[in-house]
């Protein structure tokens, strides 16, 4: 693999890691507050469909983004209602949201555009344009560093930069603010938060809505930046991969960045090298495509050592007598 190819693969890693990273941080906020969310997938999918539809109709990617976030927030509120207010089972609520989104997204797209459950292709202002950072072209000639800056760091769409900025931001919120302290506390021991006179319900709703916001951006990115329009099941399990990355990262923001880059890298490899020749043995393309999913299974099976989830995760809080 020469230098140029490596840069291309890494560049594509960054693009592919972006939706994973956003979804992973979304899950991090929710799960750190004690609400398990396997509905990341559904929220992204719904956001992807609605952002593509609105962007196509209005011609504005910004309206599309807003619509995507709105759709995701709505599903997040539904999850909150089921699991916080009505103290239902969080896994079941998440599964229901995934099913709802899988069906509803295609149904609405078909009803509006009659193109077999997809939205029409987006062009121009209906998509996020790549941003060229200052001096990118001028520095391109500098050996080694120049191409890294021009190809790898410059030239991505806005949500990519946003996603990477979210990592330090999440870390800062979680470990340096009052809100973060309370959020982490409510995921570990809601009774401690309750007796301190803080609303457990309020905190958990806040976390679930932040989760909805980030999933909305992730979904909009899929349909309006990474690709040009919505197609059926376009999230392709990214919500679940993000959950695996979250476990891999032990619910910590910087680790989440690493985990998502790893998954993005595997996806990029699969995309770039359709089959790899290893001294006579050819690895078929199917194996390459399956790699991220295989890694997901391996991680979930617990081969990466013990990950301790937030202690109150998955349990509705009931005030004890």
């Amino acid at each position, binding site marked *: 693999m020469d230098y140029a190819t490596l840069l291309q693969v890494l560049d594509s890693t960054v693009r592919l890691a972006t939706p994973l990273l956003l979804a992973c941080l979304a899950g991090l906020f929710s799960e750190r507050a004690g609400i398990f969310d396997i509905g990341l997938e559904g929220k992204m999918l719904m956001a992807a469909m609605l952002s593509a539809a609105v962007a196509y109709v209005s011609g504005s990617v910004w309206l599309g983004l807003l619509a995507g976030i709105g759709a995701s927030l709505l599903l997040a509120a539904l999850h909150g209602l089921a699991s916080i207010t009505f103290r239902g089972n969080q896994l079941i609520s998440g599964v229901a949201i995934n099913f709802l989104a899988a069906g509803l997204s295609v149904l609405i797209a078909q009803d509006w555009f009659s193109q077999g459950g997809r939205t029409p292709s987006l062009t121009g202002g209906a998509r996020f344009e790549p941003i060229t950072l200052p001096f990118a072209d001028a520095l391109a000639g500098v050996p080694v560093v120049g191409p890294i800056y021009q190809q790898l760091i410059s030239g991505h769409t806005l949500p990519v930069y946003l996603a990477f900025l979210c990592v330090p931001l999440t870390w800062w919120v979680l470990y*340096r603010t009052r*809100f*973060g*302290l309370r959020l982490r*506390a409510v995921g*570990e*021991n809601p*009774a401690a*938060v309750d007796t301190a006179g803080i609303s457990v319900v309020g905190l958990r709703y806040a976390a679930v809505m932040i989760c909805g916001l980030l999933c909305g951006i992730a979904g909009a990115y899929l349909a309006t930046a990474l690709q040009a329009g919505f197609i059926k099941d376009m999230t392709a399990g990214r919500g679940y991969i993000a959950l695996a990355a979250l476990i891999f990262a032990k619910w910590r923001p910087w680790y989440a960045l690493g985990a998502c880059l790893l998954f993005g890298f595997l996806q990029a490899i699969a995309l770039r090298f359709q089959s790899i020749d290893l001294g006579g043995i050819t690895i078929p393309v199917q194996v390459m495509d399956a790699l991220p999913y295989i890694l997901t299974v391996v991680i979930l099976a617990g081969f990466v050592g013990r990950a301790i989830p937030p202690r109150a995760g998955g349990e509705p809080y009931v005030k004890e*007598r």
Partner: protein
Amino acid sequence: MTPAIELQGISKAFGPVHANKDIALRVLPGTIHGIIGENGAGKSTLMSILYGFYRADAGEIRIHGTPVTLSDSQAAIAAGIGMVFQHFKLVENFTVLENVILGAEDGRLLRPSLAKARKELRALAEDYGLNVDPDACIEDLGVGFQQRVEILKALYRKADILILDEPTGVLTPAEADQLFRILRRLRDEGKTIILITHKLREIMEITDTVSVMRRGQMTATLPTASTNPEDLAERMVGRKVLLRIEKAPAQPGATVLDVQNLCLQDATGVARLKSVSLSVRAGEILGIAGVAGNGQSELLQVLSGMRPAQGQVWLNGQPIDIATPRADARTRRALGIGHVPEDRQREGLIMQFSAWENSVFGYHHDSGWQRYGMMQNAAIRQAAAAQMHRFDVRPPNPALEARHFSGGNQQKLVVAREIERHPQLLLIGQPTRGVDIGAIEFIHQQIMALRDQGTAILLVSVELDEILSLSDRIAVMFDGQIMGERAADATDERELGLLMAGMAPAGGA
């Protein structure tokens, strides 16, 4: 003097149950006021009302003469009330400092709050002798220190009324002494302290005044100096109670249980039992004392067949298999080993099953209860009814689900099931945890009667009083080992307390 707390006509009902009826209470500032009563007497409900967890249906609360409405914990904190719960409300993987500021932060950023709390904590440590490392993680601290963190949390919130709910349940005697020293110092500095407990000894030792609750009502409030344990117990239960069981000298027979070099490692490789050796003879009670979590539970689990371990165990001279997973509880019961597990709700009963179904668990293979795999339900029901009558289980209704009985009556169900088989060896864990005084007296009498019939009894309890009053010999466990063994009439609380803390008493025994 204006009382720090004044309650008038406080009532609270949960459905048809009156948890509190027309409660009146006056607590003077700068005093330690004890509240004593059986389980379900309404102590916790009353304190929950004071801490804003529940709204009273009727009544008035005055703090330092000002009427207040305590609608939530925040309001209680603002009124200067701090609460130390029986089960600590701490975030285990946070530091002491983070736990202290949680909910009482200054501003949106943590740094200034943490710096301020660090300074404040240092001052509190000097004022009251409450030393804790502010950067230690809660899960690395012992329970005594965790409790200090709870007290610090309250003081940091400027509480001048401190409520402690059963604070000594998890402490060693030495830790409890330390706690009492701290409480006295807090009182001398002008704080008002309410101590909720069911231990008469603690009331006598530390309180200035004491209130007794029974069946949701405040039956008496009197200066501690003018009363005694017998009087208080009678007021709690409503009849005369024997606090110390009368026992005849043991008539030990042949060795029934012999344990040599019992070792156990848990799933993470930590040694839970380190070469434990002991023996119990027929007609005697060996008490195992120790702070919870020092291997007593594991010892009971291994002996009763709930988990395998390494080492040798003989029953009446016959070796029994303890190493393989095949060595299960059913085989042990067939050998004549009865077991009253420590946690009756998780291991002793199935809460959703009726009393009569529970009355044969572990013995349901016996020929009397099943024939060709068919349960003999009519016979079981009949036997259960008779058993409940003999053990004074209330209500005596075999069809009632186990969860509808009170703690004491649930425990009687378990004890009855095991004792009625006349085991050769009875393993008992925490026989009276969460059981009220009247039922304790009854259960203790049953255990004594079984001993006098010649059963060998291994008693595990974290209540030192219970160990001292029932046992013939006492072994103390610390960190998976037997620290020492004493004859019950040749030792005292102080010596056992040192052993429980892992120290060999000075001067030797």
